[in-house]
């Protein structure tokens, strides 16, 4: 059992330190332990769960866990349908979420999500030093020194899994009384009020959805047009869970969705006057409202890491990272959890990875744990050999049912190398960008890809004699890429590598 009074990892020196106790940190420490990597885990929180101990503010997740699917709970294939469970190897740590959900919705409630994370940490007996707040950082003698509320920790390498959950607002909204995500009052206090929400991404629409039964009028405004995930066929855009205000607007039900920049916000009596301007024609519209809520994004609480040389980019202040989630500017500083979205990968067709969400970064964490185990701790990770006649069948099964490829499209890939000395070897899951941009022996990488319009399709990258080529296989209406036509096409692509025989029919 994880006891809050049990406080492992007193101040001192550790070969690796993980900071955080949200799902990203929990998955990483679990996976590091599987590889036998000695490390300490510190968190300022009192219990596991990270942001899910408080948020989403309207208390239900926007990612599903299907209690029933075409694959049995607890199997690797089932992970495709369960976006919220962390990845365990034991029966007690696998598919935890459907066990803790009450069946009223396939979107877990926030308390269910929190319970699932506590259950995972408890079942796995994860060792974490709670109530140990990371306060500042410095480099000394080539080591990272973390000052915490409990004292100093020294380490050659640290992983920061501290989320991207600090609400941010532009200067225009720096007006007394303007509220932000996480600061909202109880929903009933918005009864019969006019509410102006700045921001038309998921957090803005989440707030609008929660206040629909209460508000007299809701205005959602930002300069660019609203995108919906059902149109983009990706996680880009407003998720279906929060699309009700959009329908209200589309059917002229009273909600206003406006493409406009916010020029100025003024206090006016007990309320506000919001001045907006259309980017299309410069026309102005002013709104008298009772509440203004900023849903204008979140920043990454990296504290003093940028002063140590950790480069960041974008308004969120995400750290620039290598494909293996190491700071691009300060070696030895890694990231886990939702911060991993800073390692952008290929972004083919403009589609980002799912590294900002549990179903994406849980796989990144496993890849990172293996990478750290191999490169920093000299752990020899098993690489199964494959027979030539197995390769096509193996790769098609992976791209049809491998959850890593399904959740991290064009981002994580299954790699098989063809080395004259070692034979045909399954190298496991790796970042696709690393495969494409690194030299190596003849090899193949398979990934699942999407273009935002069609059904997903397999992509096969072949590296032969140092040159890499892309080969796209067609989509399939039932998302099944294991049939004879796919076997034929993949066999033909892999013929470039010489060593692959056709699969046994």
């Amino acid at each position, binding site marked *: 059992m994880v006891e809050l009074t049990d406080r492992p990892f007193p101040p001192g020196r550790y070969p690796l330190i993980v900071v955080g106790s949200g799902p990203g940190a929990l998955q990483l420490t679990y996976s590091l332990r599987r590889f036998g990597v000695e490390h300490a885990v510190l968190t300022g929180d009192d219990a596991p769960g990270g942001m899910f101990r408080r948020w989403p503010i309207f208390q239900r997740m926007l990612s599903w866990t299907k209690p029933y699917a075409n694959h049995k709970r607890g199997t690797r294939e089932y992970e495709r349908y369960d976006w919220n469970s962390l990845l365990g190897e034991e029966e007690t740590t696998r598919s935890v979420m459907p066990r803790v959900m009450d069946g009223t919705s396939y979107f877990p409630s926030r308390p269910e999500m929190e319970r699932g994370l506590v259950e995972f940490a408890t079942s796995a007996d994860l060792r974490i030093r709670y109530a140990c707040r990371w306060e500042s950082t410095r480099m000394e003698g080539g080591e990272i020194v973390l000052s915490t509320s409990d004292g100093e920790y020294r380490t050659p390498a640290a992983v920061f899994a501290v989320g991207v959950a600090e609400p941010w607002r532009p200067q225009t909204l720096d007006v007394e009384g303007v509220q932000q995500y996480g600061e909202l009052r109880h929903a009933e206090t918005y009864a019969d009020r006019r509410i102006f929400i700045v921001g038309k991404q998921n957090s803005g629409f989440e707030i609008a959805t929660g206040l629909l039964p209460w508000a007299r009028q809701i205005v959602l405004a930002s300069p660019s047009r609203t995108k919906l995930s059902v149109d983009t066929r990706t996680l880009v855009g407003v998720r279906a869970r929060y699309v009700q205000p959009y329908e209200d607007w589309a059917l002229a039900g009273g909600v206003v969705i406006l493409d406009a920049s916010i020029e100025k916000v003024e206090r006016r009596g007990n309320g506000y006057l919001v001045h907006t301007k259309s980017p299309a024609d410069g026309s102005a519209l002013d709104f008298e409202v009772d509440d203004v809520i900023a849903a204008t994004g979140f920043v990454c609480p990296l504290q003093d890491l940028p002063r140590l040389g950790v480069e960041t980019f*974008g308004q969120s202040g995400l750290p620039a990272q290598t494909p293996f989630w190491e700071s*691009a500017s300060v070696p030895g500083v890694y990231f886990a959890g939702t911060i991993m979205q800073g390692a952008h990968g290929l972004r083919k*067709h403009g589609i980002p990875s799912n590294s900002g969400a549990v179903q994406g970064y849980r796989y990144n964490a496993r890849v990172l744990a293996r990478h750290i185990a191999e490169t920093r701790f000299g752990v020899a990770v098993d690489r199964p050999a494959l027979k030539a006649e197995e390769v096509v069948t193996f790769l098609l099964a992976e791209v049809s049912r491998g959850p890593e490829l399904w959740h991290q499209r064009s981002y994580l890939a299954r790699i098989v190398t063809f080395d004259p000395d070692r034979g045909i070897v399954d190298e496991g899951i790796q970042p696709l960008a690393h495969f494409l*941009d690194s030299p190596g022996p003849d090899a193949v990488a398979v990934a699942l890809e999407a273009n935002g319009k069609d059904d997903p399709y397999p992509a096969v990258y072949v590296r032969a004699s140092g040159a890499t080529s*892309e080969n796209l296989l067609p989509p399939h209406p039932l998302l099944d890429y294991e049939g004879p036509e796919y076997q034929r096409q993949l066999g033909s692509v892999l013929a470039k590598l010489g060593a692959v025989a056709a699969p046994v029919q």
Partner: protein
Amino acid sequence: MDVREDVVDILSGFSLFADLATPELESLVDIFGEEAFQPGERVLRQGLTGSNFYVILEGTAGIRVDGKDRAVLRPGDYFGEISTLLGVPPTADIVAQVRLRCLVLPGADLQSFLVGHPRVMYRILQEEARKVRTTTRWLS
């Protein structure tokens, strides 16, 4: 999107956006994303589908064809428009020479962006015309 507020000042100095009024420039912050690349990192990969449209904010990038460096792109330059508009893989790698900071627009959004910003489209057209002229002179 995830673009720093300082971008509006930077963009106001680029010829590509010289015809846009301030509210339009501010709206770009909401339409584009921001990405950073490290020295040696590839932004576009020759022969790979699914490229996007990039505008360089800071840093320089090399145009590399079949492993050979051909030209250098600087702040205010853009790339990815040809492969995006034609729906074909890029014919060159674009490689960060130093730390590179770019605005990025998903390839699928380029058409609606240009149609919605005809003055930007005109500037791009002028630049493409210059490239065709240079190529024609080189060939003749």
